[in-house]
């Protein structure tokens, strides 16, 4: 009795050593191909927020306490790191002048790195922002910042002037990410209460997606009339339109399940940051490309 059991156990354990599928991406929506665009071997630690601009991907490298730029096919360029006071960069935007702004959920504040490489706190953490999350840039050049501690959404002028856009009375628990649609309405991801809000231009706040099991919005990207939403809790990439509602694009499993930031290049490919092991400084940037013949998500 014991010999066959021991043999079976040995077989199973031997098998464990060579299981080749440590992680997977399941494309629920047809017409996408998936690839690893970059990993920690390319100079990242564990990436969070992403931004695509002028042929480069800007990365809030949370695991590496740094903000980096990466042009596909080359090594990363360091824009700012812990020497400038960064601890846990979360989200980032870039203005038309090339300044990169970012939030930091451990250090707090709103930071700016200019084209000369100087990093300063545009809004210091001591101004009531001990932990900052989402970051957005409006067409008028104003920034919106998520205040995780005060449960507020703030508007910041380029000169650092602060005002409250959505106060704590609206019960947004953790404004994790923002995206403006083509009309200037603002989508807000609350990944503590698992609600997607829409703040209309007239100031009305609407719960676009709420009380849906298996949905916890992490990062938002508005591209080609569609809102793309990553969900780190459930390992999913969603698309949302007011007409079609919420639909799953892809499911991520194993060491790729912790899907964080999202950006899109000019060709419509989506870049997704994966934090495989934040403390162990491991992560990936995946690229989902539309197959030939498929309408690009960023095409009009």
């Amino acid at each position: 009795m014991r010999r066959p059991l021991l043999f079976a156990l040995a077989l199973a354990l031997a098998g464990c050593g060579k299981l080749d599928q440590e992680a997977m991406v399941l494309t629920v929506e047809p017409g996408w191909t998936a690839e690893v665009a970059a990993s920690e071997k390319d100079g990242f630690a564990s990436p969070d927020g992403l931004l695509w601009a002028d042929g480069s991907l800007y990365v809030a490298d949370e695991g590496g306490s740094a903000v980096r730029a990466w042009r596909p096919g080359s090594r990363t360029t360091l824009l700012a790191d812990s020497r400038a006071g960064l601890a846990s960069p979360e989200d980032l935007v870039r203005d038309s002048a090339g300044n990169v702004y970012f939030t930091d959920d451990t250090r707090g504040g709103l930071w700016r790195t200019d084209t000369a490489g100087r990093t300063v706190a545009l809004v210091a953490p001591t101004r009531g922002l001990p932990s900052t999350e989402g970051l957005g840039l409006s067409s008028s050049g104003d920034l919106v910042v998520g205040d995780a501690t005060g449960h507020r959404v703030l508007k910041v002028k380029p000169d650092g002037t602060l005002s409250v856009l959505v106060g704590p009375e609206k019960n947004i628990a953790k404004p994790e990410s923002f995206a403006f649609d083509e009309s200037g309405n603002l989508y807000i991801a609350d990944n503590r209460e698992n609600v997607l809000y829409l703040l209309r231009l007239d100031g009305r706040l609407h719960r676009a997606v709420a009380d849906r099991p298996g949905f916890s919005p992490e990062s938002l990207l508005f591209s080609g009339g569609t809102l793309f939403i990553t969900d780190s809790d459930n390992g999913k990439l969603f698309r949302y339109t007011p007409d079609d509602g919420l639909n799953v694009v892809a499911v991520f499993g194993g060491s790729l399940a912790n899907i964080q930031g999202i950006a899109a290049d000019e060709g419509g490919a989506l870049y997704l940051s994966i934090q495989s092991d934040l403390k162990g400084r491991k992560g990936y940037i995946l690229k989902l490309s539309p197959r030939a013949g498929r309408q690009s998500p960023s095409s009009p």
Partner: protein
Amino acid sequence: MDLILRLSDWLYLLLNGLAGRSWLLDTLISLPLDNNLVKAGPIGACFVYAWWSGGDEADTRRRRATLLVTVASLVFVMATTKIIADGFFQPRPFVHAQQAWHLEDGKLVETAKLAYREPLNGGVRNRYRALERGEIEQNDLGSFPSDHAGFFLALSLGIFLASRRAGALALAWTGAAILLPRIVTGMHSPLDIAAGAAIGAAMLLAIQFVARRTQQWALIPLAGWTLRHEALAAALLFFVAFESTNVLTNVRDLAGTGEAIVEHVAGS
């Protein structure tokens, strides 16, 4: 290993080939997956039979000691399968039927699809339909190793060590009604089942071995206590049999609730 994977796939395709042909057959095959009474009721009954089936007091005490160690070992079996599942990712066979990419040497490689015959009825069919809409829990994508195989094989084997007659029935039910339908419906591959069963069997035998050699001073008196307090022991036995029907799910939920309460109290 490639040979084992190929063998596993071949056996899976053979058994999954039974699904999707007959509504009645699929309904019967799905029944133990969807209904806890059918799934584990007979195993619980075998456990209770073994508990009471001793020929004399010494024999009963020995059997009960074996069953008590078996119950304790189930916790370790579940913990082990969960830990291994966190470290190794193998998609469920019905997940393998979808368009997917897997990570191999740092690159995403398009996964060769595995054929899948969808059952005509039952909970797995609903889960497969939900998967096609992307409505699957992330931690439900992988299936290696099978915790059901580990749990029920350990339980049945423990019953077998206490009572050959009840144990043989429990082992047969585990194989035919619990494990086989999981392969037929595409919930698990034969490799998932073999690994889970091997873990369950090895852990049970190892814990029984250690307990017999080191814990006799506690086990025999404990079993004797159940004889002196039959009514109370029977009441506790009810909980064990009840919980064995759902793979300790309620115990795990309770542990989670307890943890949340501690965090809540500590945080407030």
